[in-house]
């Protein structure tokens, strides 16, 4: 982003100078911090906080305690808007598209998964749904059609009678020894000291594209200059580098869909 004179004036004038942005977790926080300097050079002051709970985070935007957050993907934001009568919108495209992987300390290949094995999947609804769809794509399950968010209740067929255990997605690496396999984000594996690339499989881009993490703002700020500047800053080279460093090449779906 080129900093035009106009931008600066807007930032000083009718637009807020201080932008309060909540990240969903420390990794996202770090990402934001990486571009903070660049963004602030455009005449803003960026206040970053970490709010783990997406609903609380979204509520805060609605009530005006935050200007934006960096925590969710589009599907989630849509259901939030529906359920909480929200008016959140994405400023632009998703910033990055992390993919999920199936990891195991016991088997070396997806084909080695056998009857009755226990697979850990995230318990939070979004990630659980994604994991189920992932397993369907791998041909292990068959899910009901036309559901937005899947839970185990919508499994029509479980070919191997896999036992799907819902746990905190962050704890999967830790308890992987007690599972036959686990579905989780490579970032978790990486931070837990495993090789994120060692997945038996990554979920396909057609699923992944729905789960890009975006910057959400209130509808009225959709076209605000600061929002555009923020989106731009986040999409820059520097951010991308960090993302790649964090996830590893194969653990992120390409950034353009």
């Amino acid at each position, binding site marked *: 982003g080129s900093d035009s004179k106009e931008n600066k004036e807007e930032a000083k004038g009718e637009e807020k100078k201080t932008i309060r942005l909540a990240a969903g977790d420390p990794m996202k926080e770090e990402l934001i911090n990486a571009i903070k300097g660049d963004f602030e050079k455009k005449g803003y002051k960026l206040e970053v906080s970490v709010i783990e709970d997406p609903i609380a985070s979204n509520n805060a935007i609605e009530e005006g305690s935050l200007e934006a957050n960096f925590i969710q993907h589009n599907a989630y934001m849509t259901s939030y808007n529906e359920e*909480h009568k929200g008016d959140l919108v994405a400023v632009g495209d998703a910033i990055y598209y992390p993919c999920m992987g199936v990891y195991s300390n016991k088997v070396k290949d997806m084909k080695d998964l056998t009857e009755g094995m226990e697979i850990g999947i995230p*318990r*939070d609804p979004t990630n659980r749904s994604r994991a189920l769809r992932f397993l369907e794509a791998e041909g292990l399950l068959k899910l009901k059609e036309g559901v937005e968010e899947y839970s185990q209740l919508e499994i029509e067929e479980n070919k191997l009678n896999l036992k799907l255990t819902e746990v*905190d997605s962050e*704890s999967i690496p830790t*308890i992987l020894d007690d599972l036959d396999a686990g579905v989780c984000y490579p970032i978790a594996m990486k931070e837990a000291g495993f090789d994120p690339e060692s997945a038996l499989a990554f979920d396909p881009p057609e699923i992944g594209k729905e789960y890009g993490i975006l910057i959400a703002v209130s509808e009225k700020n959709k076209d605000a200059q600061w929002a555009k500047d923020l989106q731009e800053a986040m999409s820059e080279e520097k951010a991308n580098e960090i993302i790649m460093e964090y996830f590893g090449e194969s653990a992120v779906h390409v950034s353009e869909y």
Partner: protein
Amino acid sequence: MNDPALVIKSVMMPALVESLYMTFWGTVFSCILGFGLAVILVVTAEDGLSPHKWVYRLLNVLVNTLRSFPFIILAVTIIPITRAVMGTSIGTNAALFPLVIVACPFVARVFEGNLKAVTPGMIEAAKAFGASNMQIIFKIMLKEAIPAMCISVTLVVISILGSSSMAGALGAGGLGNVALIYGYQSFNDLIMYGTVFILVVLVQTIQSIGNLLYNKLK
């Protein structure tokens, strides 16, 4: 997800069972262990039956340390032990272990308070007729403290029921987990408040039983 009957049958009912299971056994084990700890704390305290500075300090630190851990961190930290004891680190039984470990210092503290509240005169009387420390604890202090301990156990049961909702992180269902995941995070108010309602009824029942016992025993 939006079919209430199905949700009740295949989500809430098992969760209720799991909650009851974890709460029951959690209470039983943590009360036993916590009572043991409380007894040792009371006995070895400076003004106790058999003062023992170092044992007291050590236990005190242990109890405080265990109480300092956020539940999930404790649960993760002790996974190797959980695994050794329970065979696995996930599921209801595995969650029971950290639940108990977290609850028992709390139990120890409240029981300690209850036992300390026993009038010294009675303990003296028991000493005077030659009761051993064990007898003083079990036949005198325990019996005298029982009504207060009833209230404490009620407190503990409800606390464990509360923490069991965090055990969901390790694959142990329970109502709290359902309320969080199927209700709150899935934007399903029916499930959320439905589950909370069940929890309210449960807590209410536990409290009523506790009060009833207290009034019987006091």
